[in-house]
């Protein structure tokens, strides 16, 4: 969004404190706090299984490559199960597919031999089209697998978090100096780097499966827990002849991942044809802030589940904010220590501490957005697939052809394909008159048009 995080200068001792400076300082914090609490979609943990010995993409995803941004480590967690001659590849596209890891181990195991693989993309790659596109493929023989998460991480900030967060005190002899104010500014710059990442969308569709008498997961969505969050999913169940549709929360690599990989709670059990709006406060489930979890939605055979919305939002009561800085300053104001401490403390609560010690952490990972699964994966079938967004950034990136549709279904804008089908494209969403920031919309195919992937970014 335009100029929402205004620049601010480093002050020097002897400068007069201006109301503009203080108001700008607080305005930056406001934007950051909003970023910590943005409505966001969930990463789709895609399962894929090849039925032929040829090249098959188990999972593919992408995000924007920002050359300025210090998130340069690709981190993935994937499980593969390979038959005799099968070869699994993790590849990144840089003008051509470049193999990062080749895995030929038979049987069910962590791809690459580790529950998390990491690759340094900071050098040796150009990403000329500005996109980091990654795939997990199997070739030569059959295999299957699941991508549990994939993101660019390893955040090394341009502006470091200050070694000591300033504490202000009233009274003579305690006058803060420029270094104190600049430390607050540095905290904001650090958090700005965290907040500048593509906005995750949720892939939704109508799903069903034909595995007789069995329960199968239809969706597995991954998210990183921030604390006071709510998972909201709205779905329609039909053809529920004695069937169940379950919503679970579970460890991110369920059912794998060691002793801790387990289902944590059942969030819903639907047995009738109905529309369900599940608004689940996650704060009471014993989750650990900073840890990744999975929400699974599945059905017993024959049931149809149409997902209408799936996203992470604030609690119904609104976001928690212990320290609320005052954003209104007048020329000639003399700041009290308490007012300055509110600003610093508020920022401190946005630090992405993986130990859960902060209230509103801004996670810095650039989640890759999973490409839409095929219409059929074995016995599982999907139709009416969509990427559902909450509009935050100006640019929509997509591949394929389809259209933007407003949440009420009344407005749409066509998205054409590239001459070579499936090329990367971007649309200036400011040019879409019916779309406002904060509004929900979908990107979806129609007729023979298919959307391969869609997500928002700030450039």
């Amino acid at each position, binding site marked *: 969004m335009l100029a929402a995080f205004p620049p601010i200068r480093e002050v020097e001792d002897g400068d007069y404190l201006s*109301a503009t400076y203080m108001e700008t300082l607080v*305005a930056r914090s406001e934007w950051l706090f909003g970023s910590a609490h943005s409505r966001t979609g969930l990463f789709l943990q895609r399962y894929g299984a090849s039925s032929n010995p040829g090249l098959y993409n188990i999972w593919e995803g992408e995000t924007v490559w920002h050359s300025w941004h210090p998130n340069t480590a690709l981190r993935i967690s994937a499980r593969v199960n390979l038959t005799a001659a099968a070869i699994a590849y993790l590849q990144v596209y840089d003008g051509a597919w470049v193999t990062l890891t080749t895995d030929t181990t038979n049987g069910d195991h962590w791809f690459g031999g580790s529950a998390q693989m990491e690759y340094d993309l900071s050098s040796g790659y150009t990403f000329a089209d500005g996109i980091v596109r990654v795939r997990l493929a199997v070739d030569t023989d059959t295999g299957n697998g699941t991508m549990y998460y994939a993101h660019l991480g390893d955040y090394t900030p341009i502006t470091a978090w200050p070694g000591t967060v300033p504490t202000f005190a009233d009274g003579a002899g305690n006058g803060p100096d420029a270094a104190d104010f600049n430390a607050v500014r540095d905290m904001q710059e650090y958090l700005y780097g965290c907040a500048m990442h593509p906005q995750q969308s949720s892939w939704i569709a109508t799903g069903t499966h034909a595995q007789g008498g069995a329960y199968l997961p239809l969706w597995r969505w991954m998210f990183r827990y921030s604390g006071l969050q709510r998972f909201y999913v709205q779905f329609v169940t039909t053809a529920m002849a004695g069937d169940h549709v379950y919503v679970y929360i579970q460890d991110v690599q369920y059912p794998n991942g060691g002793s801790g990989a387990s289902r944590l709670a059942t969030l819903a059990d639907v047995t009738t044809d109905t529309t369900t709006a599940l608004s689940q406060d996650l704060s009471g489930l014993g989750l650990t802030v900073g840890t990744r979890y999975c929400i699974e939605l599945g059905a017993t055979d024959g049931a149809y589940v149409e997902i209408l919305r799936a996203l992470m939002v604030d609690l119904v009561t609104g976001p928690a904010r212990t320290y609320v800085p005052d954003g209104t300053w007048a020329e000639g104001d*003399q700041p009290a220590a308490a007012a300055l401490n509110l600003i610093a403390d508020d920022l401190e609560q946005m630090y992405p501490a993986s130990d859960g010690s902060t209230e509103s952490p801004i996670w810095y990972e650039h989640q890759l957005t999973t490409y839409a699964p095929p219409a059929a994966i074995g016995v599982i079938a999907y139709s009416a697939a969509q990427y559902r967004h909450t509009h935050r950034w100006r640019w929509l990136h997509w591949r394929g052809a389809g259209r933007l549709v407003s949440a009420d279904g009344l407005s749409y804008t066509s998205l054409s394909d590239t001459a070579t089908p499936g090329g990367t494209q971007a649309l200036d969403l400011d040019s879409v008159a019916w779309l406002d920031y904060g509004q929900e919309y979908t990107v979806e195919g129609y007729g023979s048009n298919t959307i391969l992937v869609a997500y928002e970014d700030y450039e």
Partner: protein
Amino acid sequence: MKADHDSIATNAALGTGACLKVEINWASTTWTDESAYAIAASGHSEIMDPYAGLLSLGTAKLATATVTLSNTTRRYSAKVAGTQAATYGIRDRGIRISAGYAGGYERVFTGKVVNCEAPEGAETAVLTCHDLGSEPKRQEYTSTMYTNEETKTWLGRIRAWAAVASHSFENTVHVIPYCYLDDDDLLGEMRKAAASEAGVLFYDSDGTLHYWGAYHWIGKASVATFDRSDFVELTPALGYDNIYNIISVTYSPQQKGRATTVYQLKRPVMVPKSGTETLTINFPKPLATWIGATMAVVDGGGNDMSAAVTASTGPPDGAQRWTVVFTNASTKLAAWVTRFDVTGYPVDKRPAETYTEDASAVGETDRRYDVPPNPYVQTEQQARYLAKLLAQRLKVVRAVYTTSGMNGNPLLELGDVVTLQGDIAVTSATAIITSIDWAFVDDYTMGLACTDKASLYGFTESEYWTIGTSPCAARVVA
């Protein structure tokens, strides 16, 4: 006020023994004392237009001086062979003028000779001189894009491009998101940057370039008191034309766009065999970041010649232009560049917005002032700062005091705070010297224009909070 090393202040009060020194830098290495030829001199300098008052912040005119010199030897006649002026030229020669009393001098002007009138029938030459701003005023410059520049940093860059060595810039308040020059005159751009913070930019009498911010006069005490014994006339004028209670500042938000093709060649460009062709291309939008360029080259028959022709490597020399040199290594065939696509991240200008500060009181007539557009005012924060500052300063009628018939005092400087005391029209006023007129014709006299310092700031000056000095305290809204 300059330090008084030669009892100038005492002698200025007496007004006797005035002396003038004129020096010209003929050979750009040494200054030659021309005082023996000096007959008269006068000058004007200002930090803001006394008639436009605070509205003219950032737009001070160049200081000027006029010097009448004896030319009986044709020393200053450039068209007479063998003279000093013919040997070295007279235009653009450095000139500095000092004045004082009893052999004690202080500089009152430093600049360049911009014109010399030495008519056939006269035995005098009259030099017209402008201060050192005349140099950057004539210099045009093109730069690449600079992002999130503090105003002071940007001022410093322009100053460096203008090769201005002696300078003194106060800290600035804001950060300008996007800055670049595209054949812009350097003095004009510095003035715009200064105006974007309601500051002043000027050359002082010693040739030092100053930037003062809006807070410059906080805590500045009066350096001299003048009463009826010091001036012939003191005229207060109330600037009713400069009262405004509603201030509007228009700003132009800008944003880095997506990577795109920012330029495409619209015609084939011929590159001669074994030769080069220079093409200066203008981008429709300035570039925040250059990515690269691709081209296609053929001969007259359409055969590929891409192996023979190269283009200058980037990045472009300017944010909005690129001088590209195509070089054809073929000794047999001319080449035509048929495609030259430049890709990069353009800066998109968003629709302009306006911040309005309404400081009108109930029952007051609305008097609205629209601050002229300034390319460096790009954020709402900048516009709000300007609007609030100007509204506070312009909502009250401000007196402008002019004095005449004063003995010249070369110690006085623009921006000095002085106390003016009269008996009838003005009892006592603390004011800022905004312009100085001086003249030396046998006697050394001067006149001042001063703007009232009262209510220049919204609060008691001691209440302004200084970083690194002032303590935190229970919040007080002054």
